[in-house]
């Protein structure tokens, strides 16, 4: 094929953030009249890639060839003018404006003198919606629409301007069957005009239904591009996971499990978020929670810790009801929760190490005065035990590296003497050395008879660390993998809903 057959060619595009190589010399071609799928696990670099195409990010290296012109980077306005329209995963509509105003927000039709022509705006919006076969009244306020209709309006918005390359990021996540049919019809007619689409989705069956080719990304690198007629779903999954990678860490599986001392998680639900999740964690094992981002893992444990409201759900430990009403209550009852967002709700960045380490314990003990000397002793001890690299315990946490910051949060929960510990993404943004140390620490806790739940998007981490792994999808716990079943491939399969039989039983 000559290069003119491609509307877009990415050539060796790279993008780095401090400590992370988000994209590493990725090349990709999108042909005219093609629907091109982009797949990969969480953090594979899909979002970074499309943001570069849409001009929201500037690459560090490589070039973008679009319709025969070469660019080192694009600006958002430039991409839009060139006909690259992106439908983002999250709703970016102005809720208080009408559908018509949202569709033509940046090019509102005006009368002579610059006054907005609302009637004209409504008319062209009506025409556009009709053409796309979307039945929504253009004079309605976006606020009053359902999630599905909002998504359809977002999609229509891309067509309010000339569009040659349509980028869809997880478009069906908030669409029902009917909305999906409308979308696929739009994609097909777009394709029939010889125009192109980049389609990002975790739903492989959709990709096989609508797309022509697929590019697979893994850890910021391109694995390959395949024509979808020459590859199976299983093969796509295997490529996403990659070939047998060197396991960083391997732990001895737990042997002696005390059957009577279990944490029972019963019937946790919240409308539209979590759907009747129940499982048990035995003392002496590490229980993993896997799932795609947005599958409800974090929402579930936040409810378990008493942080977020729930419709139902009970926590039983040794047969006793310990369902916490709020975080304070949870801590009193021996639960610790290392949050996913270290800087957002884990650390007091402007405060010293010692205060961060003692925070939850100080809140737990109902005393009027602080016990400063005990506080210092504990901090020194924990700093040594966890090998926190800090010049002193009076150092402000903001000056520590990611791994050491995470150890400080870990120390905070160790100091409360919690019996049940929930770790949400314990090694995100942590260097390899600190990662292994955190794994060792978690393992040691289990040996001391604590109940441990680990949430992670890093599936090899779960495989290496956990005795059993519960996989969540769309707010439900679809399976619990045990023993030899705990493999990366199984986790990904269940998380993406590829196993058909399971869908029914789950």
């Amino acid at each position: 094929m000559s290069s003119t057959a491609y509307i877009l060619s990415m050539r060796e595009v790279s993008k780095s953030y401090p400590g992370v190589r988000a994209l590493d010399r990725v090349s990709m071609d999108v042909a005219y009249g093609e629907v091109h799928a982009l797949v990969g696990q969480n953090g594979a670099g899909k979002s970074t890639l499309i943001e570069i195409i849409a001009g929201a990010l500037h690459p560090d290296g490589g070039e973008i060839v679009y319709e025969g012109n070469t660019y080192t980077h694009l600006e958002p306005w430039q991409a839009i003018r060139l006909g690259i329209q992106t439908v983002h995963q999250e709703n970016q509509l102005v809720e208080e404006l009408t559908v018509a105003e949202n569709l033509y927000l940046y090019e509102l039709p005006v009368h002579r003198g610059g006054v907005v022509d609302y009637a004209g705006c409504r008319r062209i919006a009506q025409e556009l919606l009709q053409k796309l076969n979307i039945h929504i009244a253009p004079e309605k306020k976006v606020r009053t629409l359902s999630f599905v209709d909002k998504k359809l309006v977002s999609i229509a918005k891309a067509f309010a301007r000339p569009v040659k390359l349509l980028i869809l990021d997880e478009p069906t996540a908030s669409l029902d069957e009917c909305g999906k049919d409308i979308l696929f019809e739009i994609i097909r007619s777009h394709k029939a005009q010889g125009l192109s689409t980049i389609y990002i989705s975790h739903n492989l069956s959709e990709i096989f239904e609508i797309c022509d080719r697929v590019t697979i990304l893994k850890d910021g690198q391109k694995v390959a591009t395949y024509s979808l007629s020459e590859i199976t779903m299983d093969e796509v999954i295997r490529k996403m996971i990659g070939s047998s990678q060197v396991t960083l860490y391997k732990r001895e599986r737990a042997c002696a499990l005390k059957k009577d001392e279990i944490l029972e998680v019963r019937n946790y639900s919240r409308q539209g978020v979590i759907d009747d999740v129940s499982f048990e964690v035995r003392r002496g094992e590490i229980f993993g929670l896997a799932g795609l981002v947005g599958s409800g893992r974090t929402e579930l444990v936040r409810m378990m810790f008493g942080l977020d409201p729930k419709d139902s759900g009970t926590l039983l430990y040794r047969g006793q009801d310990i369902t916490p009403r709020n975080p304070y209550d949870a801590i009193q009852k021996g639960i610790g929760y290392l949050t996913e967002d270290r800087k957002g709700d884990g650390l007091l960045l402007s405060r010293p190490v010692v205060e961060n380490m003692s925070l939850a314990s100080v809140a737990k003990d109902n005393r009027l005065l602080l016990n400063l000397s005990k506080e210092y002793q504990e901090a020194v001890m924990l700093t040594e035990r966890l090998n926190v690299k800090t010049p002193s315990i009076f150092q402000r946490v903001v000056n520590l590296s990611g791994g050491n910051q995470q150890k400080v949060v870990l120390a905070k929960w160790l100091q409360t003497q919690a019996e049940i510990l929930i770790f949400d993404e314990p090694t995100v943004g942590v260097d390899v050395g600190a990662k292994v140390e955190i794994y060792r620490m978690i393992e040691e806790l289990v040996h001391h008879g604590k109940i441990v739940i680990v949430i992670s998007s890093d599936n090899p981490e779960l495989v290496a660390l956990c005795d059993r792994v519960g996989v969540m999808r769309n707010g439900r716990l679809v399976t619990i993998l045990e023993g030899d079943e705990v493999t990366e491939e199984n986790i990904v399969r269940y998380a993406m809903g590829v196993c058909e039989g399971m869908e029914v039983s789950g």
Partner: protein
Amino acid sequence: MAQGFSAVFRKRAPIEQAYILLLLIVAISVVTTIVNRRFVNPTNIINIFQQIAVLGIVASGVGMLLVSGHVDISVGSQVSLLGVIFAMLIQKILGLPEGNVAPWRQTFVYPIAFALTFGIGALVGFVNGVTVVKSRANSFIISLGFMSAYHGLALLVTGGASYMLFGRFETLGRGRLFHYLPISILFFLGVVILSYLILKYFRYGRFLYAIGSNRRAAHVSGINTDRVVIRAYTVVGILNALAAIILISRVGSALATTGDAYALDALASVIVGGVALSGGKGGALNIFLGVVLIGLIGNALIIMNVNPYARDLVIGLIIIAAVTLSQLSESRS
């Protein structure tokens, strides 16, 4: 290595801020002394402290609140309102100075006046705190609303006139221990020391820092953040009651606007002192030095024969400079 260096530097940062303030205070004192010898006179120094006593009490409450990342700009109106209530109670119970006063009135006037003023002070602070916490709105805007509301309330209570004490109850504001040390200074220092102890040694003080540094992390760690913030506002109200009583005792009468200026001055003191606007930083020493600096500037301008109206201009510029500098050093790190 680089991290090690910056670490050492950072740990000293808060102390350095106090040094800078001390340096500034010394510099202003030296310049003022050169212009006018009277400045270093012990009488003048004591005078300055007496003048800043009320401000210092108000600023201690505001400072501790700001450590938690919350602002109350209604403190000026609160002091005015509480002062008016205190003076009104005394005047209503004791009547005009010529009249005969029943003995029970003589006995109970001060307990009643104190109890009600402190009670209303606590209530006012509590209401502010609950509103800020429950509305989840910006505390600056909420307290702006209360500033106007309390001002209006004070006007309603006085009807635009003033309540006089007719020379009664002068001891607290004007009295001197051993005919030398003003009693109000003792209250000021007492409140500062109490603030120091609370912020450093009390669980409640630690909670204030935690909430100011990261409210969500504090919540996850088991701190009832709403309750702590409401308490901090209540403390502000109680300290304002004390400030109002001392102020009215010194001035001898109460207008609906008597305490209004304390809102700006108290906030200026704690910000200039180095309590971060975003919360989580600063201590009682910072509050104290900030108050001294603000008080000093007013006094120095008078001593140096500068037009006293220039005071607000100078203080305004100093606030802008202090916030700009701390913002710059913040964004650098």
